């Protein structure tokens, strides 16, 4: 009898370990790869990742107000650093899980050339980008325009989305002919969407480093630790690369 009870207890403990959940706050641009990573994570470790998607600014505000997140996958490097400095992240747990790429895209074939000369030609009415204050890809777009010396010339044509998701909407609906977006947004099943695209050279803007941080609420959680480790694993890395990020 005693043996059965202890066996049952061990089983229950094992099941509890198996069924552990980790609550992850994920920047909007990484939502699609995270969905796949969560599936692979559950398949490979038995842990379940519960994903909350939002803009990094919103997630920061929520974490500061005690949101129950255990891991943050940020769209930038500053926010995790800030949270760590403020004592909300586990010191030394920060690392770059993905580096994003900025592209200039138009759904019209032939509008955007492979050198981005269309920006100088000014042959368009509206150029969309994300708000540089709110979105890292917006800041990178702004730096690119500065690098090209075009931010003043083009100022009257700029429209800003509050996130790169909204910026994509402006361009995809044709309200802006072209816009600065994340490469990851334009990849469907690993293939580029129709239209024309310029891959902005990396030296024109600060690197789009996206950092992960283990939050203090996840410090003792095996599932949170497992996810932080899993993000470095081969299956996760290949998902991240397939979505247009580099490592």
């Amino acid at each position, binding site marked *: 009898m005693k043996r059965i009870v202890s066996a049952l207890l061990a089983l229950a403990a094992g099941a509890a370990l198996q069924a552990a959940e980790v609550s992850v706050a994920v920047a909007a641009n990484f939502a699609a790869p995270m969905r796949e990573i969560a599936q692979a994570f559950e398949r490979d470790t038995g842990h379940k990742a519960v994903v909350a998607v939002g803009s990094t600014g919103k997630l920061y505000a929520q974490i500061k107000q005690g949101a129950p997140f255990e891991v943050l996958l940020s769209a930038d490097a500053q926010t995790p650093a800030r949270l760590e400095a403020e004592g909300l992240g586990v010191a030394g747990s920060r690392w770059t899980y993905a580096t994003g790429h900025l592209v200039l895209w138009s759904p019209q074939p032939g509008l955007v050339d492979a050198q981005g000369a269309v920006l100088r030609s000014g042959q368009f009415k*509206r150029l969309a980008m994300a708000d540089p204050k709110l979105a890292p890809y917006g800041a990178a777009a702004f730096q690119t325009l500065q690098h090209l010396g075009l931010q003043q010339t083009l100022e009257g044509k700029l429209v800003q989305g509050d996130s790169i998701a909204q910026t994509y909407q402006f361009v995809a*609906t044709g*309200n802006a002919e072209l816009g600065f977006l994340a490469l990851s947004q334009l990849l469907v099943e690993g293939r580029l969407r129709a239209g024309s695209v310029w891959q902005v050279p990396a030296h024109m803007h600060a690197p789009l480093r996206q950092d992960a941080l283990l939050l203090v609420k996840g410090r003792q959680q095996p599932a949170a630790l497992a996810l932080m480790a899993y993000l470095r694993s081969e299956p996760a890395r290949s998902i991240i690369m397939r979505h247009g990020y580099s490592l």
Partner: protein
Amino acid sequence: MLNAVSLSPEAWKAIVLTVELAGLTTVLLLLLATPLAWWLAHTASRWRAPVVALVTLPLVLPPTVLGFYLLVLMGPQGPVGQLTQAMGWGTLTFTFSGLLIGSMIFSLPFAVQPLQHAFESIGPRPMEVAATLGARPVDAFFTVALPMASGGLATAGILTFAHTVGEFGLVLMLGGNIEGKTRVVSTQIYGHVEAMEYAQAHGLAALMVFFSFVVLLALALLKRRPVRLLP
């Protein structure tokens, strides 16, 4: 808490733009809503029910749905966009005019419903009396019906103005965040919060709470019936 001096020039621009947008929306919408409300209050047409439903639609639709469809409709491939381009106006998205049209649609039920209820509560009698006294329907409308519905008119105006000031999702989707053209107070606050500039957000947000309270207070005072004390 509320320090008007600390508001930045950027914030003032947003406030001025918001007041312009809300003011113009209110004036234009009342002009449009008054005949529509009158018709709804009196018609026996079989089109009444569908029109009532259509007018109420913006009340229940999330602003993102409205914003998304307006973005598509007013875009260069959309029917409205094609029309405005053919007229030589270009497309209306990311312009003040575009926001104005969006705001009018967004606040339509807030203008029509109080007016319609006011017209309905007058009943047919005063207009009949005016007609017997020889007033033409148009005269009777302006000299009898409209003054009697002045409470509804004021309510419609205040609600439209306040609702436009409080509009957010639609502006975010149609506006493109252009300073002095489409960046209103609500989107400005959102920008500050998202950029973690909580101090600036507080200044404007507190102003918004104060303004909304004053508006609702005005409405409550307006609706207060004179109290009749029994002897």
